């Protein structure tokens, strides 16, 4: 198990290294930071000074080395716009995004798993066909448009829920969360639902397909031959087997929820990494863009690692296989 984790960590480090190369070379092409940083009327001497200070006159490999050395110490450069370390900007926005993505994932699971299980259990029933229709609709609805419609319906017309922002937050382990206060929760609900919708169709389809696959297995028949009620056969025997593929996919999809939060955050004015990156891209704030991408890559690697660990904990074949050598 330790060896397995060690291997995974090594792979993750490789991915982050590759990402840093891609990001650095890619972002290097964006605009000219000097134009943003300095008044165009500034004397050439000042201009030259800034270029030297930022190391922009150095060849690309040298700049990359500087960047990597800085990154290893948690220094990804200062934001051109806010003039504070880019890393701390991203780190401050991270909890809001993670909270939103978690809430979205949770809603997608809570809604999608029962629906998918039912659709897989009774595939010919009219309600299952309706559920499959909903799942296709889930794929097809543009997240941003649904978000707008939600605001129109629930905030403008019905005035039930706020249309944006994080609301009141409360502190837990020194980090601020919205779900801890009622007001924050009402602010969280719409964006989380909006984000959940994006994954709902996927969850329904995945669970349905796994369910159909599992129900065909001999061990389900054997469970029924023991006289177990259907709710145990489906709820325990089938469900426990669905958990494996579900964990894998959901873990990986969590990453895409973080990425897609860009859209939801923009619509609901949720102060997370997404809002920050959109702003930074529009003003070409290079260090913040780089910090965001590196943070996302790092997050993905961590998620992948956690998924692997969760998988091996859930699947006795993997877990014990490792133990026995």
């Amino acid at each position: 198990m330790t060896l397995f984790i060690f291997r995974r960590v090594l792979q993750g480090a490789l991915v982050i290294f590759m990402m840093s190369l891609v990001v650095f070379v890619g972002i290097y092409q964006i605009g000219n930071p000097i134009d943003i940083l300095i008044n165009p009327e500034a004397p050439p001497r000042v201009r030259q000074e800034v270029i030297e200070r930022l190391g922009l006159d150095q060849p690309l490999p040298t700049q990359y080395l500087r960047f990597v050395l800085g990154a290893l110490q948690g220094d990804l450069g200062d934001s051109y716009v806010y003039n504070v370390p880019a890393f701390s900007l991203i780190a401050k926005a991270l909890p809001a995004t993670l909270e939103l993505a978690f809430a979205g994932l949770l809603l997608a699971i809570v809604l999608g798993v029962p629906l998918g299980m039912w659709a897989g259990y009774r595939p010919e029933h009219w309600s299952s066909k309706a559920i499959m229709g909903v799942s296709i609709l889930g794929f097809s609805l543009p997240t941003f448009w649904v978000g707008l419609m939600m605001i129109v319906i629930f905030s403008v017309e019905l005035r039930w829920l706020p249309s944006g922002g994080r609301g009141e937050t409360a502190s837990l382990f020194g980090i601020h969360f919205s779900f801890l206060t009622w007001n924050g929760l009402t602010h969280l609900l719409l964006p989380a639902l909006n984000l959940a919708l994006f994954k709902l169709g996927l969850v329904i389809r995945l669970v349905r397909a796994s369910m159909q696959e599992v129900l065909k297995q001999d061990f389900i028949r054997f469970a029924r031959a023991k006289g177990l009620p259907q709710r145990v056969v489906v709820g325990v025997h089938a469900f426990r087997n669905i958990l494996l593929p579900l964990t894998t996919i959901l873990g990986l999809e969590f990453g895409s929820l973080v990425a897609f939060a860009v859209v939801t955050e923009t619509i609901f004015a949720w102060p997370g990494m997404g809002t920050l990156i959109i702003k930074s891209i529009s003003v070409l704030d290079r260090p913040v863009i780089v910090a965001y991408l590196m943070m996302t890559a790092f997050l993905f690697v961590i998620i992948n690692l956690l998924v692997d660990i969760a998988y091996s904990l859930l699947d006795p074949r993997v877990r014990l296989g490792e133990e026995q050598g």
Partner: protein
Amino acid sequence: MTAAPDITRPPRLRRFAADFVRSPIAVVGLVIFVTLCIMAALAPLISPQNPYDMMTLNLMDSRLRPGEVGSAGYVHLLGTDDQGRDIWSAIVYGLRISLGVGLGAGGIAAVIGTSVGIFAAFRGGMVETVLMRLVDFQLSFPAILVALIMLAVLGPGVDKVIFALVIAQWAYFARTARSAALVESRRDYIAGAHSLGLGQWRIIFGHLLPNSVPAVMVIAAIQVANAILLEATLSFLGMGLPVTEPSLGMVISNGFQHILSGRYWMTIYPGIALVLLVLSLNLIGDRLRELLDPRKVL
């Protein structure tokens, strides 16, 4: 090599078409898609104005409700926006751009991705490993992130959006084409063909490519739908097409500012058009998958 037994082969295309229409919901999808395509093609004929010709716009007509008659004397079926632009016309023209970008990006990604996938399956060994590692690496990042980075680097423009979408999507095709081709390339007769020194191109075009086509078709339908959605999303975020090429996403985005003041028509109707377009493609893709690739679920 013996010739394929063509005589015994049933008319596959016709049988396939017959199978396809057995699902009423897929037929609905196809009808909607074809209708939208025709609308887009005939945009200048079926819309009362060219919404992006500033000469035809009249500020007097701005913010008309659906059904009101404007200064030019015709009815604005779906109302107008704040510049006096007819929403129906904006939708029809936006449809044109969305469809063009989606089909263009999906098509190019399909060609590139399929080529890479088949090449990897054909060559095997180190080439395959490296290519597929690259595919895996890219697929571990969501398409929207990849497209967002590309556009941040490239800046706005139709060609750049298409390029970004291709970069974001080719890997899906590569993975699918490779696994489909791999099934075939493991067959004995391919190995036989190899050892006979049969032309590489003959193996690729005669065996590997045809075998990958069904699976690629399935994801092509779905990826075109995704490309359209992605483009709309990027345009909404202000990262996509330039203002001179307003796709449905941008039309929706323009209306967004007025939604809080109750002028819902500027956002809802273009949104419905976008949903219909993407939904119809997904319905078609779903049916194709049922028929061509029944094992896959997603």
